[in-house]
């Protein structure tokens, strides 16, 4: 059993997202370690991209802050290497096709393995294009996380059958960002997944409160929270760590 699979054993997984390098790689490193101690089961680390089309304004701004601070993919790999010396928390990269492809997909996955990355989520590489990444992920043992959305319909079975690690279920239409209301589409999507494969399903997009997390974890195997945490980081800057830790602990406790 790999680290991602273990994260879902006999519990609901809480999966926070942060953008690497926002506000600095030093803070990101500390955040990862402290969020893991506070109960995060898997941590999603965003490699910032100049044009993140799946993100709402909160994470877009985090990407711009990180990039203007001089963060690069290589510096992020170095940070992950440092984290791995002190933490065993499952780490999943979240980024876009271009930073991976232009770096050299083989070289990128090789470095993921060396640094200790467990999986990767690439929202602009859908099922139909996954041969772009899959062979390299397999070669280096990096789990390629698939996504399903409320519009996936008949595609859900096809995607679920080949899914690995966990399935990222997009809760609602649109881009990332906190929402007051989250529709009930996810529950039905997860039911369809489980018809064809017994794979953990984590819900993301729009979840920001303990109440939402509790409700979503009622019918899923985990929840992913990004924008709500990135907002705290944006608000407190380098002093964000205790505030983020408190938020993560609160979310984990209600689930």
């Amino acid at each position, binding site marked *: 059993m790999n680290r991602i699979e273990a994260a879902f054993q006999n519990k609901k997984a809480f999966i926070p997202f942060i953008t690497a390098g926002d506000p600095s790689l030093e803070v990101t490193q500390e955040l990862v370690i402290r969020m893991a101690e506070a109960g995060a089961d898997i941590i999603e680390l965003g490699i910032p991209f*100049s044009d993140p*089309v799946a993100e709402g304004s909160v994470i877009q701004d985090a990407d*711009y802050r990180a990039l203007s601070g001089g963060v*690069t993919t290589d510096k992020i790999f170095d940070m992950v290497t440092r984290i791995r010396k002190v933490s065993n928390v499952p780490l999943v990269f979240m980024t876009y096709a*271009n930073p991976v492809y232009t770096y050299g997909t083989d070289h990128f996955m090789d470095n993921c393995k060396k640094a200790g990355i467990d999986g990767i989520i690439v929202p602009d590489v859908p*099922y*139909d294009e996954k041969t772009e990444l899959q062979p390299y992920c397999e070669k280096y043992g990096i789990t390629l996380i698939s996504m*399903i959305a*409320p519009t*996936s319909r008949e595609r859900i079975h096809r995607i679920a059958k080949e899914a690995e690690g966990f399935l990222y279920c997009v809760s609602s239409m649109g881009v990332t960002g906190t929402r007051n209301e989250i529709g009930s589409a996810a529950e039905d999507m997860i039911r369809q997944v489980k018809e064809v494969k017994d794979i953990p399903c984590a819900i993301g997009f729009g979840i920001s409160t303990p109440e939402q997390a509790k409700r979503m974890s009622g019918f899923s195997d985990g929840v992913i929270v990004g924008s709500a945490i990135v907002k705290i980081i944006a608000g407190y800057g380098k002093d964000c760590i205790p505030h983020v830790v408190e938020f993560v602990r609160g979310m984990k406790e209600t689930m």
Partner: protein
Amino acid sequence: MSKGRFGIHGGQFIPETLMNAVIELEEAYLHYKEDEEFCKELEDLLNNYAGRPSLLYYAEKMTKDLGGAKIYLKREDLNHTGSHKINNVLGQVLLAKKMGKKRVIAETGAGQHGVATATAAALLGLECEVFMGKEDTDRQALNVFRMELLGAKVHAVTSGTMTLKDAVNETLREWTKRVEDTHYVLGSVMGPHPFPMMVRDFQSVIGKEVKEQLLAKEGKLPDAVVACVGGGSNAMGIFYDFIGDGQVRLIGCEAAGLGVDTDKTAATISTGTLGIFHGMKSYFCQDEYGQIMPVYSISAGLDYPGIGPEHAYLHDIKRAEYVAVTDQEAVEAFEYLSRMEGIIPAIESAHAVAYAKKLAPTMDRDQILVINLSGRGDKDVAAIARYRGVQIYE
């Protein structure tokens, strides 16, 4: 293997939320392009609304002045709304209507594609929203008002560099929010499949007409066809029917901005590298880590960091040539054509005129060069005046 590839380029690199939308779009397009009624309706719109076929004009004074190949101008500037953009837009908006969509959204740079989309939406009775970089809404205030006059809602995009690529990002985001009743009218031969194929097909009317018109006038094919390239829709439109005619040189003119050896350029083939962005694999202006670079050109319509995947393929197989034309060369060509032929070209099209000015004298007098005059230059007059130090604002 994924769909919509041109060699290694193209594909469908978009979020899962949009996948069924592009699959349905492809199915609808493949159905309606063979549908007699659809084809008749579109032809009627093109001929009786947009003003097709556009003229193929023999530029006699220019030909004599340059002293080489016989120069013809394909007058897409005479179309309704002033550019080739209307060809694609009428096709897509009519298709959207057949698909039962209630609303269209579009990106625009200088505003040509936005105006064309707003026009077609007004005519065919669909809601229209246009996304335009904040920089561009400021620079092209007149076009913003024009779109509003046509009943469209214009959103100023404040993310990223606030220009065309960010307008595309924001339109994609908007599409993921509301995909069921909305069609994204993409303005160029770019984005995920089926857009590069579909937009090319709708624009290929340009090259088909050139072939017929030239055979009628000269009894032969051209020796060279020159067009400007941003995303590349007018170029793809005029190239497509000549790809199988190996003796016809196809030349795309990219915007070099201040020069391809500076960082103020938008020349993707000259300075870019392979990447995956905006739904497609192609060439992009980017750094070593795959971050998309800010690009620059005097022409807002060519100010884009990528190029359509079929152009990337034609470049790879060396079927088409891509050259870079600077701001200065384009402005000189803008002024040259105005004085020489009494035709004010769009600053985008002036890039093609500039290269033709260099190429024509190297060709024989019995050879033929066709320039795609993709748009008219009224929209650029104030910007050219400013370039020459005259402070005119619209």
